[in-house]
């Protein structure tokens, strides 16, 4: 699926639930694939007793990766030109997250049609965990 410049307008948005009751195992899968084995993400004993957090928590990059899935489902595969985020709150096991992208601009750049998007992911309490932006190439 790709987006055609004629089919969208500024203000259009798309959203998805990107995880439901996030499991510690999913976090371990991300550690294994990404190679980031920081015990803060998988080692409850270390994280509570040494680091002083209430529980292990997800890699920011896991939330960014899952939010990226919403983006590519919206704009199409291989279409992103830019994707950047700030991690605004931690994501703990049990989290249910929704990610939303809103089109903020549609413009021409070097002969291509580009959509700029605002990206936001919130948890089950309505707390924003990711705040970001993206740009994607459109069909024209």
């Amino acid at each position: 699926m790709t987006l055609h410049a004629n089919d969208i307008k500024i203000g259009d948005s798309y959203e998805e639930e990107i995880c439901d009751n996030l499991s510690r195992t999913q976090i371990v899968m991300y550690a294994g694939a990404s190679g980031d084995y920081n015990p803060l993400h998988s080692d409850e004993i270390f994280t509570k007793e040494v680091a002083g957090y209430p529980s292990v928590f997800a890699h920011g990059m896991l939330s960014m990766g899952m939010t990226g899935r919403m983006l590519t489902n919206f704009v199409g595969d291989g279409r992103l030109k830019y994707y950047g985020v700030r991690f605004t709150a931690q994501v703990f096991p049990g989290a249910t997250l929704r990610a939303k992208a809103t089109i903020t601009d549609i413009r021409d750049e070097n002969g291509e049609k580009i959509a700029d998007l605002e990206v936001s992911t919130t948890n089950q309490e309505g707390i924003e965990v990711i705040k970001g932006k993206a740009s994607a190439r459109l069909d024209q």
Partner: protein
Amino acid sequence: MAIGKFPIEKSHVMMFARSIGDSNKIYYDSEYAKQTECGEIIAPPTFVQSSAQFDPDYFLRPKIGEEWFGSAKGPTGITKKDSSGSGSGAGGGLHAEQHYVFHKTLKVGAVLTAEVKPGKTWEKEGRKGGKLKFSETVTEYRDQDGELVVTATGVGVRTERPATSN
């Protein structure tokens, strides 16, 4: 830090896609991918983060014969007290921001190199007191033809006490 060889491999991409809960066939099914404009299995947008697997010195991976700061017999495997150790103790580093500029679509079969350049550093007072120290690193990923594929900018923050979201 630099990574000499980061091969984009099919099963690594499949595992990475699974780990972010993405069942899109473009990340594992060659036959499907051939029929799309990509023409080949591609990597998810944030995949280059897994170049850590190809960094021999990556500090967040346990290494044979070396103490690891996660729990083992005790809550940490570090026997010597070393408050400056990476991530040991309450003042570990956290990921504050991540940005990617995509210059080319990253496909299975590419072999990347990565060059890491230090970026800006700055300080901020935390909401609950204590200094937050931010530092930026810029990683340029190039393919076997020397072409820039992805520019990744990460911002890390070190806190004087555990950061919590509430």
